[in-house]
């Protein structure tokens, strides 16, 4: 009895202490000032602000993979993001404010990404870069309730219906449709031909496949599907199956290793048909592999981001200043892509500033009012965000692997290519 009493007494005393300490907890007052919208006077006029915005600064987040499987792609994007804003800040920033970046590395692990986002989320106005399909999928409800504008480092068509998600360039299905139409224009494919499609299980692969299926349905063709895992790197079996089926073209929605394997094995086994790939199937390192010759002869890569060698002053300037700062090691399309992300974010913030609303809602509204933004060739065609559910552009550059910086040269004199089938394609069909 005595012991029970003592425990109860300790408990009551501690509870009193708990209440006293808890009562002056700092968290409540903190979050009420940082998360609620308030007005501040930047440059003499009143601008509505929100999280990540002060009178002098705008803070943006980068949630990416610098230590996992996608580090080779994400590192140059992140470097370009940082260089861009350093330069922009030196020129006076945006909306009379300097832009700070918080960079977090999730290593392609959804659990780490969710925790890292909790860390950075309250401090940032928008995400300059968000990389990784499973990570994006896992964060989607949180981003939605936080009204967090996020620029994706991916091109899935499944996320186009979310107003807070910004994609730069044509989605994977549209890339494929354009590439197939180009082959048809060149006389390498005709109505009723069989097309082999090797694709990764998951969002990326199935999105690319949807494009091929749509194109085949419009042109009376059939698709021979070969679903693989990202860990499958030898395409011997798949190519043999496609050869037996008598395909007239091979489409790939995979990684670069599968592209090299497929192109090399197809050429060696006498299956001399065009090989087309979505933009993530190519890496300049492939041109140092034994498959280089087969790739240069047969492969066409479709993507909205300009190849390094595109004859546009801005594209060259972005490439050259990257090489000056970081060397040639990571000279891949990620650089131009990163720059395009920054340029779009700059346009969005500028617009929000004009509207005098830098709150999260205001930033999304500004983004969704942009149309026909010219990216000086960095992205094929002007990009628009004013129609929800529509891609920012349906045009792509079609490029051939070659021994040049960045590994790709655009065909058709670097003209942005947008076929009629790609124009009339309905997302989700």
């Amino acid at each position, binding site marked *: 009895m005595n012991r029970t009493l003592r*425990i109860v007494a300790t408990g009551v005393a501690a509870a009193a202490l708990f209440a006293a300490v808890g*009562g002056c907890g700092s968290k409540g007052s903190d979050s009420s000032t940082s998360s609620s919208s308030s007005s501040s006077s930047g440059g003499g006029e009143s601008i509505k602000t929100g999280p990540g915005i002060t009178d002098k600064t705008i803070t943006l987040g980068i949630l990416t993979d610098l230590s*996992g499987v996608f580090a080779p792609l994400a590192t140059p994007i992140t470097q370009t993001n940082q260089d861009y804003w350093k330069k922009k800040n030196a020129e006076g920033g945006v909306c009379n404010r300097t832009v700070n970046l918080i960079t977090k590395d999730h290593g392609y692990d959804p*659990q*780490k990404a969710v*925790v890292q986002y*909790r860390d950075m989320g309250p401090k940032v106005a928008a995400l300059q870069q968000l990389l990784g399909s499973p990570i994006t999928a896992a964060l989607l409800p949180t981003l939605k309730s936080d009204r967090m504008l996020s620029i994706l480092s991916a091109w899935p068509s499944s996320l186009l219906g979310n107003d807070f998600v910004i994609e730069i360039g044509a989605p994977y299905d549209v890339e494929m449709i354009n590439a197939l139409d180009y082959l048809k224009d060149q006389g390498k494919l005709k109505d009723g031909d069989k097309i082999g499609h090797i694709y990764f*299980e998951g969002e990326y692969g199935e999105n690319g496949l949807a494009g091929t299926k749509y194109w085949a349905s419009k042109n009376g063709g059939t698709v021979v599907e070969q679903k693989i895992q990202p860990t499958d790197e030898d395409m011997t079996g798949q190519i043999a199956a496609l050869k037996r089926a008598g395909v007239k073209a091979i489409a790939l929605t995979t990684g670069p290793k599968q592209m090299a394997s497929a192109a090399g094995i197809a050429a060696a086994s006498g299956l001399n048909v065009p090989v087309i790939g979505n933009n993530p199937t190519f890496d300049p390192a492939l041109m140092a592999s034994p498959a280089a010759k087969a790739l240069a002869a047969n492969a066409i890569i479709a993507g909205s981001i300009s190849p390094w060698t595109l004859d546009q002053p801005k594209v060259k300037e972005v490439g050259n200043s990257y090489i000056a700062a970081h060397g040639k090691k990571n000279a891949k399309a990620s650089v131009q892509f990163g720059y395009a992300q920054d340029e779009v974010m700059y346009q969005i913030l500028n617009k929000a500033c004009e509207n005098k609303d830098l709150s999260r809602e205001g930033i999304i509204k500004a983004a969704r009012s942009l149309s026909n933004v010219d990216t000086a060739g960095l992205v094929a065609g002007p990009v628009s965000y004013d129609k929800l559910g529509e891609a920012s552009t349906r045009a792509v550059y079609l490029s051939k692997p070659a021994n040049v910086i960045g590994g790709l040269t655009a065909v058709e004199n670097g003209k942005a290519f947008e076929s009629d089938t790609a124009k009339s394609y309905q997302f989700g069909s």
Partner: protein
Amino acid sequence: VSKRWVTAGWVVLALVLLWIPQYAEGFWLQTGIFSMSAAIAAIGLTLLVGVTGQLSLATAFFIAIGAYGYCFFAGHKEDFGPIASPDGLGLPPILAAIAATGLAGLAGAAFSPIAGRLKGIYLGLASIGLVFIGQHILQNAKSITGGFNGRDAEAFSIFGFRFANDHPDNFNVFGVPYGQLERLWYLGLVLVVVSAWYARNLLRNRPGRALEAVRDSEVAAAVMGVNVPGYRGAAFTVSSAYAGLAGVLVALAYQRVVPESFNFLYSIDFLVMIVIGGLGSVGGAIVGAVIVTALPLILLHYADSLPLVAEPGAGGLQSGDAARFLYGAAVVIFLIYASDGLAGLARRFRLKSSKPKGSTA
């Protein structure tokens, strides 16, 4: 150390845990909730590995069943945009949580013909397959799992009180707004306490002694009248149900579950947890779960300020890599200096301090 001090220590620990949401920011709460869910699954695994002597590498699979099961039982079919959402039964969340835990237990029971016959490392190898089968199902059974897009987890609610940012709206405790994470923190605490209490009761009664007998000597256990395959299968079932309950909390913590969250490496983490904690110890499993889950996240949180770590994106050691190296080093040091885990360390400490002063032994 007198009993009174031990009791006082528990009271203080309980109050600190109850008080944390008053101060902690989202990062710490999210880390804590992930740790709690890991603790529940680790308790289940230590019952299987530490007490029964069976090895399972399928923890991630059963957690996925719990997580997806909860989303399916509690979810509603919604249509948005071009993609149709997966089906759901729309059960009240509390029933959905129980059903999901039961479903994971059933899946464990379905595996028990194998779990009862194989022992030790052989069962471990057989169970690896489940993780890969699980991944395949999660990617392809789209009407239930949502495929690669994953599916949303309905917020938990009980008697109209939602563990989300709304209902009640603007819910304040001592002036601090309690949103989704603060509310889930308390739900997690309750689930961990109930799980630990149940496991301790199980161990201190007949089933616990029977399981230990199976581990120490199959023959002796059989001679004593213990149904060896039966108990092995039962231990696997209980362990799976624990993982299922953990999965429910995982789903609530994520708000949306995706297949990549339940990969093979996730299973390995749980083995590390129970080894660090000390095999067979419920308290050790909890502490081990907190260390293995929280340490990498906290290291990552502070990695930017570590020496030798390069700017993000610049050449050199990245903070993510640095955090991984430190975590690996910590695990190795643990295994060298506390090879019987934290529970063993605590036992040695207790023995030392309870020895009368001046004793020569």
